[in-house]
């Protein structure tokens, strides 16, 4: 064997045909070593077969399972924290208007329901559909006022003044995407609702009101050319 180089021995181990006596001797020695090996005992074979048949549960818990759990749980935990922060902020933004908007929108979309909404004694939140159902007045940020065109912008200013004169609070402006329609929403003390409605109608606004716990939510829609 020592007459065979390591490189040639490697070739012989990989199955090359021996050419010299020394190579034949090396191959014979390797065959002897190979023959020495016995198959695994039946008991071991049965144990391994049973293990394979039972599946991974039989092999116990994988190592590092807690690490994988932590990795998988981290995004979920982060999402929960983000929601916990975001929900109060979003809820605060919606207060004072959006819960009432759908009721008003339903009024204007369905005249049959308008009177019923006024007469309803149940709290508006229970009767109102979710805010996203308001397809007539998709919420716009305050900067939507800059997109108002022509007389709408002027009438909006005057309507806002009329509302403030009537002691309205929480006045906010919603606009349509093209700037041709603007909607003012505000809470007016019950006693001043009539004056506020009159002032708004003078500006050509279509006004709907909803009574909510001692205040009247006024919704005035101004349309270009109206």
């Amino acid at each position, binding site marked *: *064997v*020592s007459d*065979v*180089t*390591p*490189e040639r*021995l*490697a070739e012989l*181990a*990989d199955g090359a045909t021996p050419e010299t006596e020394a190579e034949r*001797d*090396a191959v*014979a*020695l*390797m065959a*002897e*070593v*190979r*023959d*020495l*090996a*016995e*198959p*695994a*005992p039946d*008991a*071991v*074979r049965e*144990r*391994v*077969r049973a*293990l*394979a*048949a039972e*599946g*991974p549960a*039989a*092999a*116990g*818990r*994988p*190592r590092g399972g807690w690490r994988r759990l932590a990795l998988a749980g981290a995004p979920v935990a982060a999402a929960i924290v983000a929601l916990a922060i975001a929900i109060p902020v979003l809820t605060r933004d919606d207060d004072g208007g959006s819960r009432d908007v759908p009721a008003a929108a339903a009024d204007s979309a369905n005249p049959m329901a308008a009177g019923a909404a006024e007469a309803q004694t149940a709290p508006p939140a229970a009767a109102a559909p979710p805010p996203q159902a308001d397809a007539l007045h998709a919420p716009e940020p305050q900067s939507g006022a800059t997109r108002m065109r022509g007389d709408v912008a002027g009438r909006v200013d005057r309507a806002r003044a009329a509302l403030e004169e009537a002691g309205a609070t929480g006045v906010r402006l919603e606009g349509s995407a093209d700037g041709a329609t603007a909607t003012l929403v505000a809470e007016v003390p019950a006693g001043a609702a009539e004056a506020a409605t009159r002032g708004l109608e003078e500006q050509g606004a279509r006004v709907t009101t909803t009574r909510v716990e001692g205040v009247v939510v006024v919704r005035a829609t101004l349309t270009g050319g109206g």
Partner: protein
Amino acid sequence: MRAATSRPAFADVAEANLDAVHRYLVHMVGDRHLADDLTSATFERALRDWRRYDPARGRPSVWLVEIARRVALDHFRKDGRRRAREERYAAGIPEATPPPDGPGGLPDDLRDALGRLTRAEREVVALRVVLGLDAAEAGRVAGMTASAVGTALHRALGKLRAEVARP
């Protein structure tokens, strides 16, 4: 993008490679009964880690032998600690190392000669000669270069031939 490689069933892989793993462990630990236990432990660990096996990275036989090696080395480490503990209490009493035992009818001198090789040499003989892995695969398992595997095999077979008479 890497081409998808089909994934065999664990039961099939275990059945096809059981003897190879057992033979490797017999050579590694030099004790057939211990090799039996370590073979079972190897397949338990392999089943647990089966999801991590990537067919694109190598044959299942190589993956299994790598696991068998870790199982054997873990055993040696634990055994080394156990022996150290025992030696502290029974200093001076040498512990007999069981010779590798083989099947009847095969040359005892070859078996004995194998037992006298270093563990690294026995491992290379097992990987290259008994299991038929190529030099790169054997090197990957044993943590050596393919060239070092060739040198170790040459040295090991030289020692065996020096001790065992030609038939």
